[in-house]
């Protein structure tokens, strides 16, 4: 049986993991390669690296991080943040990422999804969406609106329509990040995740709001989400991946328990 994936997201700025991640054991705090190794050995299913480096000239550092991770981590990982061109995508994939995650770049230039899918295959192209609840309107009939630029700029685009368009263009997976839930530790936006997971034929990854293992169970049981992104609840050692998986297994959620 296909299992539900647990995917930690590491924000990387100029080659360092931000937010002062404090892992158990002798992990070099802030080193994305050491963090990735610890997660890999801990049984994580996949990783996301999100490059929040502000300046373009420092992006080469991210390519070095990707190469270093790919040399010793043999599970899939994706890289997002600031990818605007086909060449940006190619460099990340050649450095060893399994997938690229396109967010604002796809809203600004939807053809980027089509070009990426044609060049590398849909399985490499993840559409990441920043979504906020707004009053329902003619423009936003679902009441879920797409934002870009780190959730600061509303785009007048309905999230449900955008997810379908993204798949038509070539996205092979969709990350649904709730701006409202992000950082709250109050649980995923299940209604939003379910609406999109029931709509599109490709895997959907829930993101934003995980505060405990129960939240992860809830999004898997109550929506058709295929994977869940976690950050602070595992970065700070509050819950181990193994603990979360054992809990999910007792709750009847299919997980990968061999690694």
């Amino acid at each position, binding site marked *: 049986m*296909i*299992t539900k994936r647990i995917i930690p997201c590491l924000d990387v700025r100029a080659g360092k993991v931000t937010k002062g991640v404090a892992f158990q054991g002798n992990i070099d705090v802030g080193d994305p390669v050491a963090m990735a190794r610890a997660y890999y050995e801990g049984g994580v299913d996949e990783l996301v690296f999100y490059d929040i480096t502000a300046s373009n000239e420092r992006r080469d550092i991210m390519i070095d991080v990707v190469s270093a991770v790919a040399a*010793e981590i043999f*599970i899939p990982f994706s890289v997002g943040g600031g990818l605007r061109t086909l060449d940006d995508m190619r460099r990340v994939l050649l450095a060893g990422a399994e997938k690229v995650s396109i967010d604002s770049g796809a809203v600004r230039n939807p053809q980027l999804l089509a070009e990426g899918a044609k060049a590398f*295959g849909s399985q*490499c192209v993840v559409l990441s969406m920043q979504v906020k609840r707004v009053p329902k309107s003619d423009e936003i009939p679902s009441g879920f609106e797409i934002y870009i630029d780190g959730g600061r700029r509303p785009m007048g685009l309905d999230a449900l329509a955008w997810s379908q368009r993204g798949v038509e263009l070539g996205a092979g997976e969709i990350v649904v990040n709730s701006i409202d839930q992000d950082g709250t530790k109050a649980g995923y936006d299940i209604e939003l995740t379910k609406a999109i997971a029931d709509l599109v034929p490709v*895997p959907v990854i829930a993101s934003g709001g995980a505060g405990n293992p129960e939240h992860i169970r809830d999004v898997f049981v109550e929506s058709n989400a295929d994977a869940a992104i976690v950050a602070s609840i595992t970065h700070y050692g509050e819950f181990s991946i193994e603990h979360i998986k054992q809990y999910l297994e007792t709750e009847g959620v299919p997980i*990968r328990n*061999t*690694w």
Partner: protein
Amino acid sequence: MIAIIDYGAGNLTSVERAVKYLGYDGKITADSQAILGAEKVIFPGVGAARATMDNLNTAGLAEILWKVYESDKPMLGICIGIQILFEHSEEENTECLGILPGVVKKYDATPTRKVPQIGWNEVYQTGAHPIFQDVPNPAHFYFVNSYYPIPRDDSYIVGKTTYGVEFSSVVAHQNLIATQFHLEKSGRIGLKMLDNFLGEAQ
């Protein structure tokens, strides 16, 4: 030298990285002499059946793969590399190598079965093979596929997986072994299987 066949598919470098990590001399190559002279051959990759077969035929590599098979050299197919072994793929109605009897079909998408399958699924070992040495049964491996092989002869099936439908995720015949999942992206258990192929166990 371990030849990793370059036929314009994606995902070759991750296989090369895994082979090198395990301490073997992996080389990505499209050169017939290098492939025929290699100790072992891997044909990996993500891609569409039609494009893969077109590239193999244009480069003369379809014939080389047949020669490798007939030479008894150990060969490992991964992902699209398992599918092209069969006679025919539904994907763009493509004639494949025909080394193994059988066809390749597409999963039907349903609300609870996304296509492609992306993620970790269980492989049950249904036949004995040296590549399974010290590999848990069942164990999880990383899959990315919309199509799956249906061998006409059950004796070729050594591993099975269920994704709405039960399908053959590992097939083997003589010197040939092939997996629908990505060994090189399946963590330490995947590396163990790859190491079994590369090492003496094969």
